[in-house]
């Protein structure tokens, strides 16, 4: 009976220890009145620039074919990193009136207006990337990959799977479509399946990690924007499949600081999402089995010695 109780309590303890969610990093708080002002201001833009507004729009001088390409999903936008930013913060003067100014695109505040320091670092990395070196640098802006109305930074996302889905979609928006690829490159679109034939359990890897885990150099600060070509990309399995996994500096970077060793697992924040051979070992189990192995070897060695001594004694006794 006591043994059953112990097992039940051990199971409960294990569940409690292992089911605690990893805390999501909170965004900076915003005063409710400021938020309301932003939402009211944005609502004016969305009268035309949303699916609902577009459908009911009957405004003279509106080119609906053109407008269709400039719709914003409010739900997605508010969940994005810029979700609490006023439209007019980026779409400045020329957008305040309708019709918008003829040169309205020139009046957009680009990313570097706010993200100046980050932009300088990223631009240096990007200049080294395959996209810049292939001579198609001018085809890329930040928003080629990071749609500012949609993009979420990994640190604010709940699940690494969501980060993987979002970030891989950036790459696949060109690398998964001949039509989009043709718009940025004259080369034939690389066959991703053929190029990744060396990668075991390919679908599993593609769902569990991002293209950039292998196609960027390891950076101890933020993810590098130096996208590496196939020949320079990481191909050593142990880069991820080891206790010192580089996933700690990449996909799980924002969780490492939250990590507390859970029932002895190395890289337990990874184990929450994926069992990664070599990277998610349990030190207690390894230690227990190691001690067991040592005892077995000790018994064998001891028995061997006793046999040798016994045989020697017997041979002496028998003359």
């Amino acid at each position, binding site marked *: 009976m006591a043994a059953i109780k112990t097992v039940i309590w051990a199971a409960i303890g*294990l*569940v409690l220890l*292992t*089911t*605690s*969610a990893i805390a999501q990093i909170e965004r900076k708080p915003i005063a409710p009145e400021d938020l309301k002002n932003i939402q009211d201001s944005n609502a004016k833009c969305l009268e035309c620039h949303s699916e609902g507004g577009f459908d009911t729009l009957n405004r003279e001088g509106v080119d609906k074919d053109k407008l269709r390409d400039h719709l914003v999903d409010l739900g997605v936008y508010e969940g994005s990193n810029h979700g609490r930013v006023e439209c007019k913060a980026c779409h400045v003067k020329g957008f305040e009136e309708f019709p918008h100014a003829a040169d309205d695109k020139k009046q957009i505040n680009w990313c570097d207006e706010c993200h100046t320091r980050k932009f300088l670092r990223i631009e240096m990395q990007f200049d080294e990337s395959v996209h810049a070196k292939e001579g198609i640098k001018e085809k890329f802006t930040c928003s080629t990959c990071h749609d500012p109305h949609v993009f979420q930074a990994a640190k604010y996302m709940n699940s690494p799977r969501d980060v993987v889905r979002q970030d891989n979609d950036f790459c696949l928006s060109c690398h998964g479509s001949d039509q989009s690829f043709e718009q940025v490159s004259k080369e034939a679109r690389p066959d991703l399946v053929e190029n990744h034939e060396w990668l*075991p*359990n390919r*679908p*599993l890897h593609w769902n569990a990690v991002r293209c950039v885990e292998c196609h960027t150099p390891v950076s101890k600060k933020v993810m590098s924007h130096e996208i590496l070509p196939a020949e320079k990309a990481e191909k*050593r*399995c*142990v*880069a991820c*499949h*080891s*206790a*010192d996994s580089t996933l700690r500096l990449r996909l799980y970077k924002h969780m490492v600081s939250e990590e507390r060793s859970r029932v002895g*697992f190395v890289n337990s924040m990874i*184990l*929450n*999402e*994926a*069992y990664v*051979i*070599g*990277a*998610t*070992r*349990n030190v207690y*189990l*390894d230690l227990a*089995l190691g001690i*067991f*192995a040592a005892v*077995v*070897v000790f018994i*064998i060695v001891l*028995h*061997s010695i*006793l*046999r040798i001594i*016994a*045989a020697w004694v*017997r041979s002496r006794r028998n003359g």
Partner: protein
Amino acid sequence: MAERAYIMPIALRLWHWTNALLMILLIISGASLHFTDPVIPLIRFDIARTIHNVSGIGVSVLYIFFAVWNSATGSWRQYIPELKGLKANLDRQNYYVFVGQLKGDAPHVVPTPEQKFNAMQQLTYIGVMYIAMPVVIVTGLAFFYPELAPAQLFGFDGLLPIAVLHYVAGFGLTMFLLGHLYMGTTGTTVAGGFRMMITGWHDEHDEKPENEQP
């Protein structure tokens, strides 16, 4: 004049040594995959993975041979210990291993074609062949289809229990291999057991021992 008994047919010996080779490959490659170290790898991860997968499939196929052979020939009965007097038989076996053997006594159980195992071997081989091997094979094959594992279990990836079972059962088999190799040296001569597994002949029948199995 020593009596000799042919107790290990060629098919059995081939099965045994192929199993042994594959198990050694599995242990080394398995350890390389588990204790990965980018600086000093035992075997490089991708090579270890291929070795482990191929050997694992090989061992699984051999296990099917074992299961079919055992049921077809009734050899499975050799693994079932006689419950009556089991404790006494185990005590006698342990006494022989830890005392009698050191005194130079002859083994009291000698293998015959009908009954190759003593009580201790029977219990060990039941654990090895009917518990640890099926566990390690089923969990190993499950690794070929990781997408079928539950997404989460107790807040961890659903593959974790499969991985832990595979690791523990694989470790158990590794310990068995160590013990098995050592016990192979404890016949009348150090090399006798190994010679028997190569030639098929057991040549210690001149001791006229009293078999514990009827």
